[in-house]
């Protein structure tokens, strides 16, 4: 049996079991245990103090806002908030960890026993949430020298700005069964965090990262297989590819009669493979014990209920409401809800100034058209101009005006795209841009007939084919007319005129 055949067989015989530990930076103003600013990108070692540097004699004091954020995450994930929880010390030596222990939570975390519903290709999967706990981040080491990695570096520099930044770790049950599900869970979790406003959840800046446990087992078996941990995946794409690769690798090993070992593996984005990590770096007994410098956290019912009452609309609720209000398909609703900035923009465009769909008022613009533009052309232009939703120069009211011109037939869809691009560099109103660039849609039959006749005359073979029944060639002819009019022609009218001119 070849490996390929074996794998083929394996796909049928085994199911993949996945659990995800998500690390997420909280967006508090100050660090977890001191008053240093927690902002990203400052000059190295400018945001430090005796506490986050672990100076002898310094003591941690828990950031109340961070505890509150962690509890809100727990509540949004339907967890129980423990009446009493406790910080522990996780002991291991690492140069960028100032105290050589990390203050974390161990067997008494703040939030336990929750769940999150995840939409996978239109099907809802309920993923158990084991726990949500708090911890502090470490510093960042820069290895200087040949390889840029610790081995072979000439020397290393350490930036402690990140040391002590508040993190939460969100641990799922091993309820996920495929790379698709893993990605969908991560996306949904990110949407929840963004809706709560407790984290930037920026994967590219590392403020959200994943450790994923992957194992496989024969379909129908209750026992779990040997678990492999994939560390520090920092994009949804890496998450998907790494899980997909690892599950296949495990099937291959078993199919070839091999044995899986419990280990930590590193995902190499370049080669698209997982490789074993040096066991020496991770085979550690963390010697957890209760952090004696911090008192236990007592969560009163009043505090918890206050936080619960203050929770914002969560993505699942928001999706249901949007689908109902707009009639958009689930996929598009899901896309809109993933990013609160996109959603707010969409709602502003749909509802007109000030009246979002959130208040239940009938939309003033066609949500399907708006969704298409916000998700399509706008995103394309943002990428083109190096902008983000936060720095988008085209306000929702201006896009709304443009779409109104489109709806009124005063500008063609093609021309409207040019207008939108123009609006990235000009503050003029869409109507002014349309006028200035001469993009007003030509809906005048007389003006278009001349162009149509010219195009038909220039393409006798296409006209012949059309007359012979190949109606598909009409598109090519319409395209030529659009080009000749620089996109200003009303395509529907052109189509009618062409048919009449060819006489099919």
């Amino acid at each position, binding site marked *: 049996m070849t490996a390929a055949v074996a794998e083929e067989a394996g796909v049928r015989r085994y199911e993949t079991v996945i659990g995800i530990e998500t690390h997420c930076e909280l967006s508090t103003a100050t660090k977890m245990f001191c008053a240093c600013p927690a902002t990203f990108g400052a000059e190295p070692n400018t945001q430090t103090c*005796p506490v986050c*540097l*672990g*100076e*002898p*004699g*310094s*003591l*941690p*004091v*828990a950031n109340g806002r961070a505890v509150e954020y962690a509890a809100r995450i727990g509540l949004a994930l339907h967890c129980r908030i423990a009446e009493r929880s406790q910080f522990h*010390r996780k*002991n291991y*030596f690492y*140069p960028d960890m*100032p*105290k*050589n*222990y990390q203050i974390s939570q161990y067997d008494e975390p703040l939030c336990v026993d929750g769940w999150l519903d995840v939409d996978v290709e239109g099907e809802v999967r309920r993923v158990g949430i084991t726990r949500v706990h708090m911890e502090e981040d470490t510093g960042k080491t820069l290895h200087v020298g040949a390889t840029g990695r*610790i081995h072979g570096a000439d020397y*290393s520099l*350490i930036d402690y700005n990140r040391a002590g930044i508040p993190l939460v770790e969100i641990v799922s049950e091993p309820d996920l069964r495929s790379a698709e599900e893993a990605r969908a869970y991560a996306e949904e979790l990110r949407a929840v965090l963004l809706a709560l406003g407790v984290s930037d959840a920026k994967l590219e800046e590392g403020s959200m990262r994943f450790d994923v446990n992957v194992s496989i087992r024969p379909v129908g078996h209750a026992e779990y297989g040997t678990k492999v941990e994939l560390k520090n995946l920092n994009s949804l794409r890496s998450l998907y590819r790494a899980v997909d690769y690892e599950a296949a690798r495990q099937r291959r090993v078993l199919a070839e009669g091999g044995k899986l070992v419990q280990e930590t593996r590193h995902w190499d984005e370049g080669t698209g493979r997982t490789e074993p990590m040096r066991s020496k770096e991770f085979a550690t*007994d963390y*010697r*957890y*014990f209760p952090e*004696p*410098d*911090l*008192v236990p956290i007592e969560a009163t019912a009043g505090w918890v209920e206050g936080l619960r009452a203050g929770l914002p609309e969560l993505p699942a609720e928001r999706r249901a409401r949007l689908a109902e209000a707009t009639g958009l398909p689930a996929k598009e609703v899901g896309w809109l809800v993933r990013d609160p900035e996109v959603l707010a923009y969409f709602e502003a465009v749909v509802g007109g100034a000030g009246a979002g769909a959130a208040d239940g008022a009938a939309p003033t613009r066609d949500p399907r058209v708006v969704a298409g533009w916000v998700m399509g052309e706008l995103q394309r232009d943002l990428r083109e101009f190096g902008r983000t939703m936060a720095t988008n120069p085209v306000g929702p009211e201006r896009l709304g005006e443009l779409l109104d011109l489109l709806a009124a037939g005063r500008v063609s869809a093609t021309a409207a795209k040019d207008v939108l691009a123009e609006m990235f560099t000009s503050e003029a109103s869409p109507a002014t841009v349309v006028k200035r660039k001469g993009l007003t849609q030509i809906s005048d039959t007389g003006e278009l007939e001349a162009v149509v006749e010219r195009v038909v005359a220039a393409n006798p073979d296409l006209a012949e084919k059309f007359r012979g029944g190949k109606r598909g060639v009409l598109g090519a002819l319409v395209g030529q007319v659009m080009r000749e009019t620089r996109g200003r022609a009303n395509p529907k009218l052109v189509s009618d005129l062409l048919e009449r001119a060819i006489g099919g």
Partner: protein
Amino acid sequence: MSPPGESLAELTAHELAERFAGGTATAVQATEAAVERIAATDEVLHAFLTVTGDQALADARRVDEARERGERLGPLAGVPLALKDVLVTKGIRTTAGSRILEEFVPPYDATVVRRLREAGVVILGKTNMDEFAMGSSTENSGFGTTRNPWDPTRVPGGSSGGSAAAVASGQAPLGIGTDTGGSIRQPAALCGIVGVKPTYGLVSRYGLIAFASSLDQVGPFARDVRDAADLLEAIAGHDPMDSTSIPDAPVDVTSRLTDGVEGLRVGVVKELFLEGTEPGVLARVREGLERLERLGARLQDCSLPSFEYALSAYYLIAPAECSSNLARYDGVRWGLRAKDSADVVDMMQRTRQAGFGAEVKRRIMLGTYALSAGYYDAYYGQAQKVRTLVRRELDDAYERFDLLVGPTAPTVAFPIGEKADDPLAMYLNDVFTIPVNLAGNAAVSVPAGLSDGLPVGLQLIAPALGEATMLRAAWAFEQDLGLSTRPVQPARDAEPGSVTAGAEEVRP
């Protein structure tokens, strides 16, 4: 002006305060007297690791100027003090008695140091101690042993031996120590002075270089109870920088200091009168019990069986915490760094190997083992249960008693080197003080007289935040016993073994 022949270094803090107020002495004069006394005696005693004479004089001058301007000053303004080298001082080297911090200059002041400065206390320098406060004799210092002013061939106790010797010898009227398992009370007893271990959380630990975080507490040394009470008041109180600091703790321990012990219910703890305790120690303590009774206290025997396990529990919990607290001394950020290392792991290992002494290494290993997977429940977990038991038994005892009483240490000051190679014998010297740390209660050691010419301490134990009552009893006891509060002095160039004849005269 002070009477001819009597140095200001002989006086207690409250005596100095009277002279300052009456204009017969200045803070500068008192500081000069202290610095002179240090210069004259520290070659023998080795109580100080760092003397900050110039800064002390400048601080004293500021207090005198403030007094001249008519500013309202506290009772300790202008009084010199010896600070244990485990509390960080901004810009002043702080070693914790360890070679690994030999060159360490902290960037900030401990809260206790800030409070002392705010009270106008003049800090003379930093005193010797067992490395990272691990020891009962100051022999574990990385910088040499401190000697007992009563007999320089003997230890001053530890770990706060430097501060205790400084106060006993008149190098300073006041001292600051820390007490994790007896490190204030035991040296106070062995040096014949007063030492208070406050309730856990009464005094801020911010800036105290940690040994065992759940047990460490800062407290005062003085040559009489009033001074100790005044110093405790100056350093006590909530600190938002220390999460374990007690909010709204009462800090008044002086207003009822002289109210006496009439009617106080005092429990005599059977487990604190262990076989093996020196007869001379037992004799002084039993006399002390009679004295308390005569003064109107109602004494009754009690038994706290869990005390028997306290020492074992302590030697799991304290090392466990220290193994984690001391992990930060790795050569990466401050202190010693081993040279020519192959890589970062090699550098860390060699730094710690070179920088830590034998006792510190022993406890790091004990603690690491106690917390290891598979052993945690049997060692650390079990020790925590004992701790809960000790606390519960003490809480029960306080239903019936206002205070508990016993000896502070089983022996008087022992010869240097006698227990240095026998860790277990050394650990046993803390057997009477450790239960209080496990429970987080308050306790004081107060001089109870001499045995073979060496001081014996009586230990009074109070419930959490029971300092006011405890010091009231200590004051009444001290007043009735009537020992001199004048310091003892080793001969200027004493060969180890000789003390000035005056010592016997001033301490009956």
